[in-house]
């Protein structure tokens, strides 16, 4: 039955460096040797920290945490493309990006060992938001930050991450709609790692791609190979340009894979096959990036070995610092509930101190 077509849309996919390290030369970004090596170094550091955290957790020296292994090529190129005044709004699988932005390695360790101290930045102006455990909320925070940056006339853009599962939350929808209506300088990146705990991508949403969800908001969208740091570098660069030029938000779907368990409390064998994981490991970002650097003559096994040693030492040092004794008081929550003094809190504070003292006496 003939109808009038009133709107047309398409979704593009960007891939530059494929899983075999094969390069699409015409798309290759102009990145200096130093830039490329810096990017690789951050990826190695994040991988090393992630692997070390898993050991610590298994040894009972760290709490439950969500491993990042395999997703380094997303948040690291993104963070490297950001400017000082930009806001970095993570979900909880952006370890590399947080490190690039200047969050100490120890912060992540403190955080996952149950200490709010892990959220306290060396400098608030690093503009990194704390991890957002309640999925979806951060989408709206990012819109608010972006609005504020524009209002204050700062040259600042906001970058916000969420997972494929997170796209099902109402806040994802409401926040993207606000960002588009207000034409905000913000970039939303969905780390589509194919799984939301045990829920596979295809059971999460019936849309062919996640990128196309941007169409619902009139928001430009793009699907990128999230295991390809070059493609991510190009994609975030364009999106940040749009944001800074006042052209509004962009939605980027970064296709990757959650190589490890959801968190250390999860057992993936209950819902996916080793076969699937094996294939995914062959596509992981570090191997291909390493090969690319070697092909360009920027890298060799000797340097690789040296780098491995460096990041190992760096992580080792952070762990030492992390496990060194702390004099963090147990009663700080009473000082943080309000910014003003209130009698009821003060009374309870005294009661708390009395309880703790009594229990200390009775050992």
């Amino acid at each position, binding site marked *: 039955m003939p109808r009038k077509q009133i709107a047309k849309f398409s979704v593009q996919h960007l891939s530059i460096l494929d899983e075999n390290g094969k390069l699409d030369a015409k798309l290759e970004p102009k990145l200096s040797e130093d830039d490329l090596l810096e990017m690789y170094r951050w990826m190695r550091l994040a991988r090393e920290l992630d692997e070390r955290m898993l050991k610590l957790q298994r040894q009972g020296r760290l709490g439950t945490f969500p491993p990042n292994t395999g997703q380094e090529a997303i948040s690291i190129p993104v963070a490297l493309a950001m400017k000082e005044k930009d806001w970095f709004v993570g979900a909880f699988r952006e370890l590399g990006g947080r490190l690039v932005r200047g969050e100490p390695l120890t912060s992540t360790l403190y955080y996952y060992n149950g200490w709010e101290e892990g959220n306290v930045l060396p400098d608030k102006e690093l503009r990194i938001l704390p991890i957002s455990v309640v999925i979806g909320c951060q989408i709206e925070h990012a819109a608010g930050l972006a609005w504020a940056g524009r209002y204050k006339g700062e040259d600042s853009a906001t970058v916000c991450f969420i997972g494929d599962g997170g796209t099902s939350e109402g*806040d994802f929808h409401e926040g993207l709609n606000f960002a588009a209506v207000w034409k905000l300088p913000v970039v939303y990146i969905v780390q589509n790692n194919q799984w939301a705990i045990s829920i596979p991508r295809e059971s999460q949403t019936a849309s062919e791609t996640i990128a196309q969800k941007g169409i619902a908001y009139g928001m430009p969208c793009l699907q990128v190979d999230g295991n390809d740091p070059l493609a991510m570098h190009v994609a975030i660069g364009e999106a940040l340009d749009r944001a800074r030029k006042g052209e509004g938000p962009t939605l980027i779907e970064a296709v990757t894979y959650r190589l490890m368990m959801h968190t250390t409390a999860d057992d993936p064998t209950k819902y996916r096959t080793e076969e699937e994981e094996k294939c995914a490991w062959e596509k992981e970002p570090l191997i291909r990036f390493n090969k690319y650097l070697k092909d360009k003559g920027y890298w060799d096994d000797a340097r690789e070995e040296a780098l491995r040693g460096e990041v190992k030492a760096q992580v080792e040092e952070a762990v030492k610092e992390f496990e060194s004794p702390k004099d963090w008081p147990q009663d700080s929550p009473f000082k943080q509930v309000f910014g003003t003094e209130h009698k009821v809190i003060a009374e309870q504070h005294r009661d708390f101190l009395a309880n703790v003292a009594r229990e200390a006496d009775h050992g």
Partner: protein
Amino acid sequence: MAKLNMVQAINLAMHQEMAKDTDVIVLGEDVAVDGGVFRLTEGLLDKFGAERVLDTPLAESAILGTSIGMAMAGLKPVCEMQFSGFAFLMMGQFEAHATRMRSRTHGQFTVPLVIRMPYGGGVRALEHHSESREATYAHLPGAKVVTPSSPRNARALLVAAIRDPDPVVFMEPKHSYRAFREDVPDEEEVMPLGKAQVVQEGTDLTLVSWGAMMRPALKAAAEVEKKHGTSIEIIDLLTISPLDSDTVTESVSRTGRCVVVQEAPRSFGVSSEITARINDKAFLYLEAPVKRLTGYDVVMPYFGREKSYIPNAPRVVHAIEETLNF
């Protein structure tokens, strides 16, 4: 000094604070061009422009969520929930972030914002437009909950709320919006948050209320005083959380008797907390049980029945008499 109703008084507070501080931003559904469905934000758009007075899409969670982001960036958003009945859609953002960002970051990031919302019954409104849920917010540590009762204190408390370093749920008794006028000084007036007010001193009984219930409470007190010559101390809580129970318990320690008037359903409500605080601090002075005169533990009926469900002066009189005669 002008005689204003509560709508005008709240509007004045926003006008003055926005004029004073360019970090103050107003946002919500229909707050700009329309001036708010109750006209609370009237004139703000003309005065301060679309840059600072924002009509939002229809999404409560995003209204608060974006406000949180703005506040973290140093602004002071004053957002409106069109009716408190729709605010449950932003509870996720409220509980997870508005109330926690300070403790989460040990004060490095804070969320100084105000969530304005009309609440309460008695205006023959549609379903979901008549509830009183102050206890729901008050039980969550990290946010302040304020319930003005008159044009003058509404204005002075909203100014304090906007300047407060913490998120404030500012619950406006819509039944009192246009119910009466009061002299409101043109010059700045601020009342502290977290402080109850003794609106009348007395010796025989302590009558505690807040928001729209202050009017039946005052009416009833006058009636009882006239009828029995009783001397009633009347306390307006003004802030629900953090609750200034000392003002109440100190009073009850003198009077020995207390009636609390609450519009919300009784169980797990504010009057229960007040009773518990009196139990803690004034137990030995009590000559009668604390009387909770409240709404009932039923779903707020549609307006065909609401009048018989909302506490009124005769019921307060009865409660006072019961407590005096205990």
